[in-house]
């Protein structure tokens, strides 16, 4: 056992309102400058939707992340380093600016400066790349709130996998939001892709950074990251990425995106993991087992042996204490409601997500699935509007069972708490039905619902 510490995040998508405050505060703080106009370290995607950059999840196209080769061994999907060196000057797996979006501004000054003229002055869009007039045809968040659409749905790589479940009809509309930052993976393919050794994980907290001095601008990291969360600054010619706000985290402040999240859905915490087991876990043969494998790499911070090993590894005692009270650890491994994004990329991402509940589809409700009859006002999980298969393609490589388990736990929490809310006797059978203790459900409720500042971070 080789204990290492990792800063990790959990986002509760069931609370995300898709407001993009995180995107704006992050952009203002970090990438509001020349060369990074198109860069959003934090972005929020409406799902179904193509994401940013478009279709980034289509690894058959972009070949990011890792795969198991014919011998079952872990290899970069884009091929080994030789291939990288061979293509270093013409990397074909790079999203173009159009795949992100062509950033623009407007000639605002004309509103003030326009001479007397026939028409009301108007500010026209001007490309920030070419400086020329342009028609705006894509943005950082073009498919916001569409819920997919005929024009864009087929380009959602996740939707394509479950397209037989989904119809783009008013009555069947569904959508939810997916905020994304760098995953600060335990097994980062960006770092492995870098010919210059410029990308590294901080030993003490696992934050993945680009050494700006060492970066040579080869952009292999951009290709290598299956989440497309490394960006190329076209002014400096260097790669840049989310830093987990390390200048803030180092002084005890949460990341900007987390602290400014008005949905109060982001949790930051330390997890301890066994660095010796990462490779084996990432090499798990069956993609459906990757979620469990990833979870199992994380160590129980209350296990005396782990504590001992952590101290031996030089992790300070207060860090171990932090790991013990970590809300992230609780949500991932105690309550088991947080899931990794695309574990099949095998990078061991360290931003985890609680999948969203959603309203029932009317068709089901109207055909007699009357929730009231069971004394429960809430709908059955199998009547939900968001196809579980879609969520499973995001979080469990297509395995619906873990997603259903999470949604049932959330629903059970609501049913259990409703009795308490209305002053009735609580019903112990509800937690039991999802394999939880009453106290556990109550504690989870406090963490998810009250979500006090000092318990979120």
């Amino acid at each position: 056992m080789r204990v290492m510490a990792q800063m990790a995040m959990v986002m509760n998508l069931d609370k995300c309102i898709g407001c993009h405050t995180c995107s704006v505060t992050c952009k203002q703080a970090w990438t509001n400058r020349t060369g990074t106009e198109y860069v959003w370290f934090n972005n929020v995607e409406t799902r179904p939707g193509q994401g940013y950059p478009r279709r980034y999840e289509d690894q058959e196209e972009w070949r990011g992340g890792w795969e198991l080769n014919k011998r079952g061994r872990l290899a970069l999907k884009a091929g080994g380093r030789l291939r990288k060196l061979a293509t270093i000057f013409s990397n074909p797996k790079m999203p173009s600016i159009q795949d992100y979006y062509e950033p623009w501004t407007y000639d605002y000054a004309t509103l003030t400066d326009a001479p007397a003229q026939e028409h009301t002055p108007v500010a026209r869009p001007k490309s920030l790349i070419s400086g020329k007039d342009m028609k705006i045809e894509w943005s950082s968040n073009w498919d916001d709130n569409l819920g997919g659409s005929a024009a864009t749905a087929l380009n959602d790589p996740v939707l394509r996998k479950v397209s037989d479940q989904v119809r783009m009809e008013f009555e069947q509309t569904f959508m939810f939001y997916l905020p994304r930052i760098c995953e600060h993976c335990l097994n980062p393919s960006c770092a492995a892709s870098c010919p210059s050794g410029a990308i590294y994980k901080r030993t003490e907290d696992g934050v993945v950074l680009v050494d700006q001095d060492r970066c040579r601008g080869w952009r292999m990291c951009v290709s290598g990251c299956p989440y497309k969360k490394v960006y190329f600054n076209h002014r400096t010619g260097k790669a840049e990425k989310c830093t987990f706000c390390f200048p803030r985290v180092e002084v005890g402040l949460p990341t900007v995106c987390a602290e400014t999240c008005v949905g109060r859905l982001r949790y930051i915490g330390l997890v301890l993991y066994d660095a010796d087991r990462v490779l084996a876990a990432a090499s798990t043969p069956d993609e459906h087992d990757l979620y469990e494998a990833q979870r199992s790499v994380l160590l129980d911070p209350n296990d005396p042996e782990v504590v001992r090993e952590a101290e031996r590894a030089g992790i300070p005692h207060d860090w171990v204490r932090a790991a013990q009270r970590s809300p992230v650890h609780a949500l991932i491994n105690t309550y088991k409601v947080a899931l990794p994004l695309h574990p099949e990329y095998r990078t061991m991402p360290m931003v985890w997500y609680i999948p969203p509940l959603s309203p029932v589809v009317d068709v089901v409700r109207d055909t007699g699935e009357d929730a009231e009859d069971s004394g429960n006002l809430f709908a059955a999980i199998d009547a939900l509007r968001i196809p579980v298969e879609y969520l499973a393609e995001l979080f469990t490589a297509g395995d619906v069972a873990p997603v259903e388990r999470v949604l049932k736990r959330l629903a059970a929490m609501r049913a259990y708490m409703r009795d308490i809310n209305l002053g009735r006797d609580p019903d112990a059978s509800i937690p039991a039905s999802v394999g939880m203790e009453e106290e556990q459900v109550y504690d989870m409720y406090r963490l998810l619902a009250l979500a006090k500042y000092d318990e979120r971070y």
Partner: protein
Amino acid sequence: MDGSLTDALVRSRRYFTRRGEVSDDLRTLTRTGGRQADDFYRDRWSHDKVVRSTHGVNCTGSCSWKVYVKDGIITWETQQTDYPSVGPDKPEYEPRGCPRGAAFSWYTYSPTRVRYPYVRGVLLDMYREGKRQHGDPVAAWAHVVDHPQRARAYKAARGKGGLVRATWDEAVEMVAAAYVHTIKKWGPDRVAGFSPIPAMSMVSHASGARFTSLVGGSMLSFYDWYADLPVASPQMFGDQTDVPESGDWWDAGYLVMWGSNVPVTRTPDAHWMTEARYRGQKVVVVSPDYADNVKFADEWLAVAPGTDGALAMAMGHVVLKEFFVDRQTPYFTDYTKRYTDLPYLVTLDAVGDAHRPGKFLTAADLLTHEDVENAHFKPVLLDGRSGEPVVPNGALGHRFGETGAGRWNLDLGDVDPLLSLLEPGAESVLVELPRFDHVDGTPGSLRRAVPVRQVGDRLVTTVFDLMLAQYGVGRDGLAGDYASSYDDATAPYTPAWQEAVTGVPAAAAARIAREFARNAEESRGRSMILMGAGTNHWFHSDTIYRAFLGLTTLTGCQGVNGGGWAHYVGQEKCRPITGWAQLAFGLDWKRPPRQMIHTAYWYLHTDQFRYDTFSADTVAAATGTGRLAGLSTADVIAKSARMGWMPSYPTFDRNPLDLADEANESGRPVAEHVVDRLRDGSLRFAAEDPDAPENFPRVLAIWRANLLGSSGKGNEYFLKHLLGTDSSLRATEAGESQRPRDVVWHDEAPDGKLDLLLSLDFRQTSTTVFSDVVLPAATWYEKHDLNTTDMHPFVHSFNPAIAPPWQTRTDWDAWQTIATKFSELAAGHLGTRTDVVAVPLLHDTPDAMANPHGVVRDWKLGECDPVPGVTMPKIVTVERDYAAVGDQMQALGPLLDKLGTTTKGVTYDVTASIDYLRAKNGTVRGGAAAGRPSLARDVHACEAILALSGTTNGHLATQGFKTLEMRTGTALHDLAAEHEGKQITFADTQAAPVPVITSPEWSGSETGGRRYSPFTINVERLKPWHTLTGRQHFYLDHDWITELGESLPVYRPPLNMGALFAEPELGSTGELGVTLRYLTPHNKWSIHSEYQDNLFMLALSRGGQTIWMSDRDAAKVGVQDNDWIEAVNRNGVVVARAIVSHRMPEGTVYMHHAQDRLIDVPIAETSGKRGGIHNSLTRILVKPSHLIGGYAQLAFAFNYLGPTGNQRDEVTVIRKRSQEVTY
């Protein structure tokens, strides 16, 4: 890991890196310490200071922000997280904010920033020429505006570029000259000011409002104008609007979001909703589209737009049937007996072979009571024990007068009010009830029996019995057109009936109603409806809301934490309302101020009345008696004005200063002189001839607002008639038979009525580009101010992160500059004059008893005498020393010492606060304000607001409750006692958001740190509502309400624009395109027009004006996503790009409102002019019943009651246009 070559290469990295950094399994690289390479990000993060501020646009957020400053430059902002805790078992308010607010700092240095004063060049040239010729600025202004060709020249140039820089001195001199000239020539009520929503930046609002009020100008209302005022609230509660803070959503066991898209419009509060679900709250969303909040709902009811009232009525049917008739629900029965008018008696008038519900039976109808004080305002109910009529305490008649002292309360004593007259052997009669659900829109009626009794010579029934009849809930022994079952689709208001109207399955409607009521029964009132613009911006929204409030009131949810209505649109609560009002309206120097109903103002002055092709009785019921027959809407406005119901400014066809002089010369008291001249017809109300030049509005100042880019319904009418510039108006004027009867018709409509449009802003908007003078304003990060909301219980501050840059000034500073210059010029031109102010009959005063039974009496028709303050406005004289206005602006005046302050009928002695402010702010030395507390600086104004309000000054709160106790005879002052010694100072608000104090200024209690919910003081302390009965009113008995068939909750469909204005049939596809319902909901990427031009918001959306439409409608006219389209109706033309999505319902488009016209709007094919804005397709439509005044809760107060600027009933043709656009 695979591959020896890869291994070799990865291993080779070890040569470039230090030992131990590459993992043993070669996957990755780790590094500790010595990371100078990352200094860039540390530098980027470092900053010099963090300043607390917020955003003062009209947004309810009231979020406290940290503004970061580095090297004297504002860098960015993040949210404060230091709100006081709401308790260990609840979520907290941190971190309030949204993406719009987070992008605000972009404005500071953006190219759209107004950095210097600007004047339209052609105007400035002519003014300079005038000054050269005449020397005097006032004469120079007259030189321009009183010369037709010159006036025409600069008015026609409005909005077409050509702004030039001016100095502050020159721009302000011209503005001041315009004010002086206008007041002198046309009268002070010909100048107007517009700035909305004071709560969001009280001092900035008060700045220009104070100046406007002190000179005698009219402040234009906003809450009714925005159609955010739910007229049902004054109708039912006698209250403007009072709602729970968002933290109280947490307390609800059942939450229906109905026309309020919380994640978008209440972004910082949305978490309370998502979190309350985890506590077992059920959430239902009613929305035509798959709105953002549907994601969080347990159920989604996709209602057809504008038919929400039908669904709510059907739910009311279920609640009444299952919880009042099939079985009695003790909690509901007790609640409605005590807190509603359900047991009160209504007289029935025989009409033909049926009866119609008439007036409330009052003490005046009882032989035993007819002589009691205010007998007409003391309604009657039957005591269930004795069966005798009784006059309960707490009526309007107890609120005023000697005998009411100690009896204005809801204590019923031994009386057990009888809800229903139905008993074995009870007599019954058929009543005729209105219905509006016919497919062709013609009003109809139906007959349903109610039990009756004879009281004296009156046949009466109870409101409850009428409610059951109205909702169609039959009972044994009662004949008539009652519903046979829930499946009876022919009878209003069954679940099956509503399904045909709304599209919501009948079973779902019934089930949600049942769940809602059951939850309320079990939790004693913790069922909540969160409602908003989607249901409140319709022409008939008052009926929609009364149907909603029927649900929350029948189930005992009003006045309960976690229950009742939660109306969230535009309702921003100015918690320290008393202090703000004194400053804003100059009440410390002059009373009364002029306050105008904004909707009627522009309806007349932008000549929209000339395009109305129907009469006011078009909206009357089949049960009406023709009281509005033959009147146009303009006639009704004029009628309301002369009867003193609603304010009307300009008031007379004469300068009110000259009117005072005339009276003086005639030797008669002014009021008598006015009455005489009105009688003989030599004096007329301006509203009777709005197109006569002497009745034009002449000067309009706009600050903190974007009238022409945001709230101006009928934008093209504004451009044409008010401004006199190009417009895309396509409507034709009403034909002769459709024109007003009383209001004068000019054959030629005037264009360019307004002489000066002044705006103060920090960015360019559709208002600034059309303005004659634009003054550069400080942003919200560059000044001191105060901020509150009803979404949370705190008061917090604005503070300057930097000084106002370039030549910008704070609003407080700018208006003082204007006032000082004005007084300098006024000294020679105006001096001291007497002004004649016509004041409407006011709510919360004895004026509300002017019209017994709400009977219409028009003196002009000889129905009564013109008696000021009874049958016409009060006539009050105000002496104005125009040369002293500059001094008055900067000091707190002496009227406060003498008259105190009055809010909602409670008067406060504020002499202690005045003494405190003398010391705190310093005292003015010399001049017209010598010895008075200073208001020279914005911080002084903040301190004055805090010291003069009960919510922020515990002494005043306690004192106010003690005053109120004398009237109610119940204990109240203990509610504020815990904070009696607390004076919140500006410094407190700078340190952190501060919770406010429970005060009689509001209806809810925060005592002991509880969450604010409205009417908890009424329910728990038996304090009456400010209504006729003192209870919540289901029944309204005013003549005009009866005429419209709205005495009881009722369903009224959206207006039929085809029938009214000959627009194409909704849903039809023709040569020109497809005709669709046109809705303008709030935008995700802006707060009204603010932020829609912000580069961050544009990058996160589609970068310009868009219209959302369904895939099905798009297919009909061949429109693809992101195609350029044009939306065209008689009001104007819009060019936008289409967003096509199946989340939109077929038949309806959304153009999110206030996208302005300045960003990427090309030339329209249809008009050849710049494409318009969302309001290019709307116009003002006035509902006659909103003009009622002078009767109980239907009495005017500013922003409390007035016609709404609704805009949801509109339709538009959508068509694809050439994809080649030009600008």
